[in-house]
């Protein structure tokens, strides 16, 4: 059964009582929410994901009002596994904080994977990793590529199996911030958006629902083929510049969440990824031009 197979009101009822258990690729989480306003957006953004029996879950998140005066302050909190408060926020920011909590768990516990801070999309089994710090434009490019038919694996983390280099997908909603929200609304008018959270520590945040086919094919093969380091600047000319692989290695290592934790295994995994990838910097301002360059890479590989 999928989330979308039950009504929004039933979903809201479950959220507020026993919770819902959702599978996103390799992870299963249970979500309970005592913030009624979050039910409809979560239902809309996760409608294609499997809703499963709550036998085995990796972790349990609870969204709830924070403190005795929450009715007056509007403060809420997200709690993981009934013991740790991850963040405190005003209720309109609940959805971003839910997504950040899901990311937090992956960064801290999913060490069966080599985890790179990167958006990942795939076509014909070949994946592009868009690496870089917040603000580099990776989520914007990711959303645009997904709108062009690339399969979404993640807008936030590349989960690489150290043994096979297969990249596992979570296909969760794409998080857009500030100006990139309108950019994608114009670029992909049919994209399904969640509500805008206006006052977060990252500015305005809105999420784009993953396409149904990305969720349906969540376990399809994807192996790293290209590593791009995008950098958005308002006046940049679109330019794709090859990076020597050893330099790309160091940059990707610094973008990895658990390179240090995995030690030698992290080194070997990243080295094997770099062996098979072409690595580039991508400077861009114009989204359409940037996509043309990226899709050109895919077409060259297809011909080769």
């Amino acid at each position, binding site marked *: 059964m999928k989330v979308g197979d039950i009504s929004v009101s039933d979903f809201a009822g479950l959220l507020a009582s026993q919770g819902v258990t959702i599978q996103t690729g390799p992870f299963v989480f249970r979500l309970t929410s005592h913030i009624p306003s979050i039910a409809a957006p979560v239902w809309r953004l996760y409608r294609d994901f499997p809703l499963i029996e709550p036998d085995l879950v990796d972790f349990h998140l609870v969204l709830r009002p924070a403190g005795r005066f929450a009715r007056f302050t509007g403060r809420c909190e997200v709690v993981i596994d009934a013991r740790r408060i991850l963040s405190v926020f005003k209720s309109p920011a609940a959805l971003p904080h839910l997504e950040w909590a899901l990311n937090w768990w992956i960064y801290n516990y999913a060490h069966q994977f080599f985890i790179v801070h990167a958006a990942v999309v795939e076509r014909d089994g070949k994946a592009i990793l868009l690496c870089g710090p917040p603000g580099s434009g990776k989520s914007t490019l990711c959303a645009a590529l997904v709108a062009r038919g690339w399969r979404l694996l993640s807008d936030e983390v590349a989960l690489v199996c150290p043994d096979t280099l297969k990249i596992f997908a979570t296909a969760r909603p794409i998080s857009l911030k500030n100006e990139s929200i309108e950019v994608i609304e114009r670029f992909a008018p049919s994209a399904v958006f969640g509500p805008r959270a206006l006052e977060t520590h990252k500015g305005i945040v809105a999420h784009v629902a993953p396409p149904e086919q990305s969720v349906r094919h969540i376990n399809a093969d994807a192996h790293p083929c290209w590593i791009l380091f995008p950098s958005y600047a308002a006046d940049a000319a679109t330019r794709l510049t090859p990076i*020597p*692989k*050893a*330099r790309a*290695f*160091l940059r990707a*290592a610094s973008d990895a969440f658990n390179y*240090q934790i995995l*030690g*030698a295994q992290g*080194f*070997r995994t990243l*080295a094997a990824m*770099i062996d098979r990838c072409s690595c580039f910097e991508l400077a861009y301002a114009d989204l359409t031009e940037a996509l043309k360059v990226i899709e050109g890479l895919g077409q060259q590989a297809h011909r080769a």
Partner: protein
Amino acid sequence: MTASPWPIWRLCDAVTLLWRSWGDEFVVFNVAANQTHLLDAFSAAVLKQVEASPKTLGALTGHFAAELGADPGQVLPRLEEAGARFAELGLIERLNT
């Protein structure tokens, strides 16, 4: 027995290195310290010599002078510079004999 005028270079205790190269650039991972370093071809060749077995600076100078077809007097400062960096990074120690 006369002491050698050259110090002996050897890997620090417990240092194990993993290597990967692309073109003329090398990445080396020091397993014990969990640290990664980017090396050029010359520095990598020096470290690999020391990794293979401890060497005197004199032996290294002779080896690389022959390898590069260069004057030992030109090679020695490059080796000393590389050695100082490796020592600073905790990769090698330079022992006076």
